[in-house]
């Protein structure tokens, strides 16, 4: 009798394990399929416009991973992608569609730069954290108008967050054109941040700096926060079903405020790291759509911090590789934006995954 029960337990465990395996395999196959679709569409567009897709993708790969330095540069580029992806994920987890990442990035970058060039006689150990805190605060506080409109007046965040992007970009353009203009800057830009605010580099010959390590650490922190803390649990529940969460007595307002502030703060941190680590000053239009990359990475990663890393690396590789592709083969780098767009379009398609899962069940079960 006991033996039989144990056997049944074992059988059930076995079953659950197989179910899990099927799911993981199905997810993997689904991503592979979507990736192939996206790359094929990119290739098709290149082919139809008279370019050679194979040499273009070859140059892209070479540019992203061709040698150690290029790989390091790709990792550096993925720093901002990771932070943007996590910023997007945290908002989406709470069912907030934060389309304002781009604007929050600009404001965070500017406030960090301001602290960087205004204070000049601080030791690095004080100056860098101060700049970073300024960046986080800048990005977070820029979401306050949206929070007010959403919580007090029930205006969905979709349009206001987007409008604040345009406002933020023009506001920072104004700031570097008039009050904080540096006439010696090569493009419209703020003065250089003090040397004490620059992030230490990790390798000579590459732009990679300690910002990358900060981003990696943040992946683990955000995983712990979302899945292992009470506040993170509340936020996830609010995201799954707000009415249900409210009925269960969970703090809906607090979760929404926290998610929005964290989302803005993290992308603001990303802005700070870009200025302190890469550019050295605030430059007008410095972001080539990193906020939007973050939005796409979060969707591709299905809001899981650990999945953000490979997605961010992929996006970073596309960004860096595209530059080489354009200069070597003459294929416009805009083609990668189409690849990314296609990727996002198909990630949300549920039918592939269902069919793959059905097919796999026959094999695994």
């Amino acid at each position: 009798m006991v033996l039989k029960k144990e056997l049944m337990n074992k059988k059930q465990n076995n079953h659950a394990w197989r179910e899990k395996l099927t799911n993981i395999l199905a997810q993997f196959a689904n991503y592979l399929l979507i990736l192939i679709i996206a790359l094929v569409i990119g290739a098709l567009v290149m082919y139809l416009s008279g370019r050679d897709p194979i040499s273009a993708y070859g140059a892209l790969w070479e540019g992203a991973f061709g040698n150690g330095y290029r790989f390091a540069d790709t990792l550096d580029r993925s720093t901002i992608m990771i932070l943007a992806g996590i910023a997007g994920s945290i908002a989406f987890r709470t069912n907030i569609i934060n389309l304002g990442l781009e604007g929050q990035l600009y404001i965070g970058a500017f406030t960090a730069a301001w602290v960087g060039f205004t204070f000049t006689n601080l030791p690095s150990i004080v100056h860098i954290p101060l700049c970073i805190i300024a960046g986080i605060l800048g990005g977070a506080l820029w979401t306050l108008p949206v929070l007010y409109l959403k919580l007090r007046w029930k205006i969905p965040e979709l349009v206001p967050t987007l409008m604040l992007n345009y406002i933020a970009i023009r506001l920072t353009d104004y700031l570097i054109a008039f009050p904080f203009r540096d006439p010696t800057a090569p493009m419209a830009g703020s003065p250089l941040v003090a040397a004490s605010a620059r992030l230490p580099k990790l390798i000579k010959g590459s732009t990679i700096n300690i910002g990358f390590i900060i981003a990696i650490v943040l992946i683990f922190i955000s995983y712990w926060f979302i899945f292992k803390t009470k506040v993170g649990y509340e936020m996830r529940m609010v995201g799954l079903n707000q009415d249900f969460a409210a009925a269960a007595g969970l703090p809906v307002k607090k979760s929404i405020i926290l998610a929005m502030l964290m989302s803005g703060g993290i992308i603001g941190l990303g802005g700070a790291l870009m200025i302190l680590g890469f550019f050295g000053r605030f430059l007008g239009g410095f972001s080539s759509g990193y906020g939007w990359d973050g939005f796409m990475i979060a969707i591709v990663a299905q809001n899981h911090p650990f999945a953000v890393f490979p997605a961010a690396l992929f996006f970073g590789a596309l960004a860096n590789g595209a530059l080489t592709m354009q200069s070597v083969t003459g294929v416009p780098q805009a083609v990668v934006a189409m690849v990314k767009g296609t990727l996002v379009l198909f990630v949300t398609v549920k039918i592939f995954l269902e069919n793959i899962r059905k097919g796999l069940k026959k094999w695994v079960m």
Partner: protein
Amino acid sequence: MGNVDLRSILTIALFASALRMATPIIFATMGGIFSSHTGIFNVGLEGMMLIGSFFAVYGSVQTGSAYGGLLYAIIACLVVSLLFAVLHLELKANPIIVGLALNIFAVGMTNYLLTALLEVYGVYKTDLIVGFNELEIPLINQIPILGKLISGHFPLVYFSFVSVYIVYLILYKTPFGFHLRAVGEKIDAAESIGVNTKKMKYYGLLVSGLFCAFGGTFLSLSYLTLFSEEMTAGRGWLALAAINFGRMRPVPSLMACLVFGFADALAVRLQQFGLPSQVVLMLPYIMTVIVLFISAIIAERRKKSSLKKGEEDVEFSPS
């Protein structure tokens, strides 16, 4: 900056250009209204309009006619909105994400084609692009002030205002419009009276694509005859705010479009008075947030007053 006289800013020309600036927003709004009534909040208007702008210019060069450009834009936008519809309705993708991805895809696609097809970066402007001509309306252009305001616009400006009335007629005076609205309001009820709800959603999305083609064509073939990267500059999003303000009704939404058009025109005008362009160009976007804010206040007031009256069903049909 100090000696800006209000009378020298608020000229007839300013109001005339407000009508012009409102035109693309009106088209996008009317398109968005159609899909909103079937229950799909189309956030891809921006991207569709951008694709329309590009293909209008491309078609104009290919065919040597502005109307040829319009035709190209319509075909391109219908193809893209069909793609949207298939992804959402057949492959069950989330419409908000499809719309947003479409916007990103549209920027990438138009930038790519700009370089790959037309071999320029950033802006495409040649004499080969044939734009629309202004339309002088006989008799009306003789009237002193009104003539300046109403006559001498591009044909699509007039058509955008006419389209508001057409949309109103279709939505509220035809059985088709009744069925379409039923899909968004009470989908079960619509199904029970034999409406093919999926077909209606297809129509909603395709019509919004059609309108975006008009909006996009206006942007690139009327006042300006060129295509530049991301030239829609958020107008698709202003349209969403206008739909929200008008609660999906054509005429009230038109009012919001006119406010946005005025803000746009004012921004251009104020630049000529030496105000920093970066600051005044924020105006349309700030105005959008304000319009949303006002519509939320109105909605709350309405709710309160109807509660006082003791009406039970507050959220009734938006018609």
